[in-house]
């Protein structure tokens, strides 16, 4: 492992992010605020409490997860798609570096940005509802692991996509529904039993549940299952990326 290429990729990606920092922070902050106004204030006033927590506070972890997942996927997918699209990826492919160094650079930068965003949203949320974090260490761990894992998923999507449509379609068609159906805005035991069963196949349920547990000490599924699920997902993404670089899939003719 050579740290110079990792640093070069990481710094270049951070520089790219910084050029568009304002828009990339302002838009999630605005949309999160909107969620709070609509779900927290308008609807939340009719829902008394979920699991003994005010509805506005209940949705905070889910909202952060929603932003974390969509931002991680879109940052990382764009980060690798763009050089592929512009052709400047030739340099990456001809450099004496391993796929691990490439992934650490790109995924690290994308994850850094989403973690920063997650923290900003957390701060925004605290303006609307009184926040309480029971397990701050676990909260940060979930935040980091989720950002890294979904940045990897985004990285894979960026390599797989051969056009801008596909780049936008996957987050829209897969990530957003999975998050909405993943218990961001409700506790899954509010669902009919059949749908509760179906939901357990949604990996996002485990992330949101674990994350919410770190805030309020309540969860839909066991915390062990949440951690195991992230670890499994991380391993699958890493294996997929290893396979991509060993076969040159969508990278080398």
């Amino acid at each position, binding site marked *: 492992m*050579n740290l*110079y*290429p990792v*640093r*070069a*990729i990481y*710094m*270049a990606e951070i*520089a*790219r992010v910084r*050029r568009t920092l304002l828009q990339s922070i302002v838009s999630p902050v605005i949309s999160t605020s909107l969620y709070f106004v609509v779900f927290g204030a308008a609807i939340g006033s009719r829902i008394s409490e979920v699991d003994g927590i005010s509805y506005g506070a209940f949705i905070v972890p889910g909202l952060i997860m929603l932003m974390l997942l969509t931002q991680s996927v879109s940052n990382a997918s764009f980060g690798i798609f763009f*050089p592929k699209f*512009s*052709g*400047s990826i*030739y*340099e*990456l*492919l*001809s*450099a*004496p*570096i*391993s796929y691990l160094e490439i992934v650490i650079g790109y995924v690290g930068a994308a994850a850094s940005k989403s973690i920063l965003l997650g923290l900003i949203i957390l701060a925004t949320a605290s303006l609307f509802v009184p926040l309480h974090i029971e397990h701050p260490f676990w909260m940060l761990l979930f935040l980091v692991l989720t950002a890294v894992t979904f940045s990897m998923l985004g990285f894979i999507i960026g390599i797989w996509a051969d056009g801008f449509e596909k780049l936008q379609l996957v987050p829209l068609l897969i990530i957003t529904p999975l998050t909405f159906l993943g218990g961001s805005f409700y506790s899954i035991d509010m669902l009919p039993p059949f749908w509760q069963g179906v939901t357990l196949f949604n990996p996002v349920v485990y992330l949101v549940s674990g994350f919410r547990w770190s805030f309020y000490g309540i969860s839909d599924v066991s915390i062990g299952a949440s951690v195991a699920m992230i670890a499994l997902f991380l391993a699958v993404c890493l294996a997929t990326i290893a396979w991509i670089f060993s076969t*040159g899939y969508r990278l*080398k*003719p």
Partner: protein
Amino acid sequence: MNDPIIRINGLTKTYDGGFEALKRVDLDIQRGEIFALLGPNGAGKTTLISVICGLVSPSAGTVSVAGHDIISEYRAARAHIGLVPQELTNEAFETVWNTVSFSRGLFGKPPDPAHIEKVLRALTLWDKRNNRLMTLSGGMKRRVLIAKALSHEPRVLFLDEPTAGVDVALRREMWDVVRRLREDGVTIILTTHYIEEAEEMADRIGVINYGKLVLVEEKTALIQKLGRKQLTLQLHTPLAQVPEGLAPFDLALADEGSTLVYTYDAAAREEGEHGIAALLSALKTANIRIKDLHTRQSSLEDIFVDLIKERA
């Protein structure tokens, strides 16, 4: 160390869809030489370079760089290589300085602002170092690609049509840069469609056509071996036909008999019997008076065109 720096054995590339872009190419590149790869559009020049640099997977055959296999020891092999691609590709929003420094880091080298400055100055990019790439002209962008490739001090430099779209003065400057690199011991492989560039720069020339390496030769030997000379004689009085006394010479009449063209092998010019001196004295004997004369040596371009025509 007389081992070739690049060793290509039986290299074949079949693209998805079945197109065979390289057909069992064998080639050794010597340390420190300038090797020019010529060939018409679609011949396989870029494909060959791309396989060596790791952008395209080979279908069969092996390549080693400085003794390291490009696949099993790709790190060691690629650390030697700098690549200037044919297509202009740039991160439009980056500055010249940042993008060139990025390349150095990407190739695992510690930062060295003094080296980057040297490279930028050599390519007359120093004044533009804080410009974003999108504000540069096409020729400047190409020089940035060269600077990126030189940023990590490669021992082997691939230049895929480095002077396409570069103005005449700058082309000469680039040739100087390439020569200086060679003096520093860098091996250079370049492709070009400007034959005079190969003629001016190269030590050896390879010609590739339909994915086959059809010829590899020392440049001077090539010109000598295949080059032909022509002596054109302007006659005082037009001739109806070549006089019989001149039959041993390869002569042709042109311009309605007022010009006599003598074609001869550059290699055979010393041979007294059919040399120029012999021809001139034969003309005198035949009582043919000459107004003017000039000679012309066929260029690499003629040779190249002939070669491609022959093998097509």
